[in-house]
């Protein structure tokens, strides 16, 4: 009988159940994806990154963060589940169902929900992981040989993690319900809210909050030499500061607005503010957590993408895009594919310990290089200037021009460079060779072809190795390997964080929807237009979403200072991650509003 009741109970809240269920599926999907990519043998093997230990460390760090956020998320999802079923459970108990029976019912309901969701999540996760991996591999430009789409260890890990968390959740649900008086379960909506108005206390809290935040932000600007001291200090002060700010500052603002009658006595502003004021008291903890996670997630994406920008910097720090020293058909064929904008060819004769160049060629087409200027100002990128190498200095030892040029010619380091006149050059005997420096229209686009040319030249010309290591494409591909790991980490951690923190907030808001419904019904009865109710909902939920976002953004802006030694310019192109982030976050906001309106505004 009671099982039948349970099924009808769930049927009645099917829509809410689907929301919860899809949230859980997405969470387990992301969890599986991260776990399987991070632990996939192909990604932690040397041939991709070459910095094994470092990367394992980063990924472990990532997994720990993911475990924490997923746990928090599941706790809130679980409380949402409970809030949906509370009244039904209370009803069964009032009808005389034994609390042990109800306990078993809750337990199996929670566990079954979790288990089904994670199972589906893993299956979908397999597909998602394959797609994402393909994209990632394509970006890395490496050939994958031993990639495994299905990773049993990741499947078991995901399953185990979710089942354990849900087991704990189920136990806590049982405990909560069997220890709540039946009457409170039935009248959950009318439970009086804890009212405490201590303006002085709030004022002190507000001041403390702002001060603590200021200390936290200041600490992060200090020299990164003390990083082991900085990070814990900043974390503690910022978390405490955010908590007090939510409790103090925002409450003060709301009180101010409530007292400002010209504002609060318009439409149902009063009601919106009242809702927010009461929410803030029960939301302080979750908002604090969300602002911190928001910062971590946004920070992860920003830093991750910023590592990506390091390869652009690599591009800029070389003047010539490629060097050609061979004339084999394969090289010629590849060269024809390039969109060449500039080609400077120099001929030389190799004789004993000397390389003889024709001075006239340099006078006609002077060699160029990039000079890099670093600035003390952390917010600016280094600037790059094109400089012409003085032809007269090219063969003078101990000059900068000579040393640069030596590194640009195969075998130019052990041998000496000499520039001679046209007549002299013509009379010299010795092996006649050439070297061409090329600029293409779009380096990133032609990069695969340039790599192909290099490969051919390495096969054919042993001396080419000398200049290969200091070539633009070599450094560029090195950088891709190095940065992609960070980009990937940052991006997926960021997205995973964002989806979970946004849906945590969503579940928190939705858990209260059932009890809010009564209020909206009342407003409807006394004649508030539906449009007005909608706009109040949008404002209220909007504020709940905006507050942690604002703090989180400030956290990131200040926190990026920590990366000033690691990244060339942490603030470069910052709008890209911010935009991605805000668009996704906005999506969650709109989803929450839609779902909330569905629950709250449908008449009985």
């Amino acid at each position, binding site marked *: 009988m009671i099982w039948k009741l349970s099924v009808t109970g769930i049927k009645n809240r099917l829509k809410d159940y689907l929301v919860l269920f899809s949230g859980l599926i997405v969470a387990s999907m992301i969890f599986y994806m991260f776990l399987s990519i991070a632990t996939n043998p192909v990604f932690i093997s040397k041939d991709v990154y070459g910095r094994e230990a470092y990367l394992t460390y980063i990924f472990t760090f990532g997994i720990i963060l993911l475990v924490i956020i997923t746990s928090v998320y599941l706790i809130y999802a679980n409380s949402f589940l409970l809030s949906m079923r509370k009244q039904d459970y209370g009803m069964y108990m009032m009808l005389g169902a034994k609390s042990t029976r109800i306990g078993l019912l809750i337990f199996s309901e929670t566990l079954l929900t979790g288990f089904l969701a994670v199972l589906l999540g893993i299956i979908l996760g397999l597909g998602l992981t394959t797609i994402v991996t393909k994209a990632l591999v394509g970006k890395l430009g490496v050939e994958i040989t031993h990639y495994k789409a299905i990773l049993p260890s990741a499947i078991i890990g995901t399953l185990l993690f979710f089942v354990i968390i849900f087991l704990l959740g189920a136990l806590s649900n049982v405990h909560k319900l069997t220890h709540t008086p039946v009457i409170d379960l039935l009248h959950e909506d009318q439970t*009086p*809210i804890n*009212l405490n108005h201590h303006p002085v206390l709030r004022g002190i809290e507000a001041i403390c909050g702002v001060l603590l935040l200021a200390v936290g932000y200041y600490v992060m600007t200090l020299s990164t030499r003390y990083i082991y001291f900085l990070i814990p200090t900043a974390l503690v002060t910022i978390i405490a500061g955010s908590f007090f700010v939510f409790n103090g500052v925002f409450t003060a603002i709301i009180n101010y607005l*409530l007292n400002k*009658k*010209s*504002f*609060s*006595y*318009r*439409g*149902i*502003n*009063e*009601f919106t503010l*009242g*809702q927010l*004021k*009461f929410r803030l008291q029960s939301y302080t903890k979750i908002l604090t957590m969300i602002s911190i996670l928001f910062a971590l997630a946004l920070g992860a994406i920003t830093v991750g993408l910023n590592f990506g920008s390091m390869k652009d910097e690599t591009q800029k720090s070389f003047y010539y895009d490629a060097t050609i020293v061979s004339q084999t058909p394969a090289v010629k064929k590849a060269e024809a594919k390039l969109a060449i904008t500039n080609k400077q060819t120099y001929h030389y004769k190799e004789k004993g310990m000397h390389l003889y160049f024709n001075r006239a060629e340099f006078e006609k087409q002077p060699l160029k290089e990039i000079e890099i200027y670093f600035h003390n100002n952390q917010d600016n990128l280094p600037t790059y200037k094109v400089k012409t190498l003085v032809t007269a200095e090219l063969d003078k030892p101990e000059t900068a021009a000579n040393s640069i040029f030596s590194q640009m010619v195969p075998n130019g380091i052990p041998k000496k460079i000499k520039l001679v006149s046209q007549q002299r050059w013509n009379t010299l005997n010795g092996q006649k060779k050439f070297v061409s420096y090329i600029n293409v229209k779009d380096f990133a686009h032609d990069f695969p072809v340039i790599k192909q040319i290099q490969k051919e030249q390495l096969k054919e010309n042993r001396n080419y190795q000398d200049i290969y290591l200091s070539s633009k494409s070599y450094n560029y591909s090195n950088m891709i390997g190095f940065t992609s790991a960070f980009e990937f980490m940052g991006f997926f951690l960021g997205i995973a964080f964002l989806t979970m923190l946004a849906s945590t907030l969503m579940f928190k808001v939705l858990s209260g929807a059932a009890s809010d419904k009564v*209020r909206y019904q*009342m*407003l*409807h*009865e*006394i*004649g*508030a*237009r*539906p*449009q*007005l109710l909608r706009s109040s909902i949008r404002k209220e939920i909007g504020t709940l979403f905006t507050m942690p976002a604002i703090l989180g953004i400030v956290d990131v802006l200040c926190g990026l200072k920590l990366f000033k030694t690691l990244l060339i310019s942490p603030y470069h192109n910052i709008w890209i991650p911010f935009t991605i982030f805000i668009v996704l976050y906005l999506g969650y906001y709109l989803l929450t509003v839609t779902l909330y309106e569905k629950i709250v505004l449908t008449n009985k």
Partner: protein
Amino acid sequence: MTEILRVDQVTKTYGKRGEKQYQALKGINFAVNSGEFVAIMGASGSGKTTLLNILSTLDKPTTGNVFINHEDNSTLNANQLADFRSQQIGFIFQDFNLLENLTNRENIALPLSLRGISPRKIDPLVDKIATRLGIKEILPKYPAEVSGGQKQRVAAARALVHEPAILLADEPTGALDSKSARELLYTMADLNHNDGITTLMVTHDPFAASFASRILFIKDGKIGEQMLKNGQSRQKFYHLLIDHLDTDE
């Protein structure tokens, strides 16, 4: 005497077509004049709440029309209905229906801000009605911090602050102890008598009904008969009413 409310051949059938249907109201006709205090009495399930929900435009009749201030409710769209409620109707419900996240003052102010009254004028109006109902002291408190009787006064203040055409009350004393119930009823009678507030109250309690000047009896979805006070004292009217109900059973 102007007519404030007219109910014309109103029926209400619950349940969709093809499903099991139940006719809760079977053709209701009556009118209420300005300044009247009318009670509607009936047994449980007789259709009182159904009728009140239709009068207050929260629900639509299946057939028939309701006119308040000569305006036909059925011609209004959702926004107009909301505006209509916020301007013409004041409500008191059995379960208070106060917003517990607003102070009593803010609760009372709500209908005024909904009507777009200038914020400057709101507080004086709230104070005025609160003084009239003797709840000035508890204005800064939250509903959860005051007694049931006080809550119902706040609800009454909220129902009256915007001077609606008619005050609708559904079992306003249902959740009150007898002392608070008595106080509220005296207040309502006083407001009706001295301030001329047209009141329509639904109740099954003869004591509450005896405060009205006219009582309509509803039975099985139809208005049966009516009793008029005709200047008798409340006590007398109450005894007559009890006798009437006894013979009726």
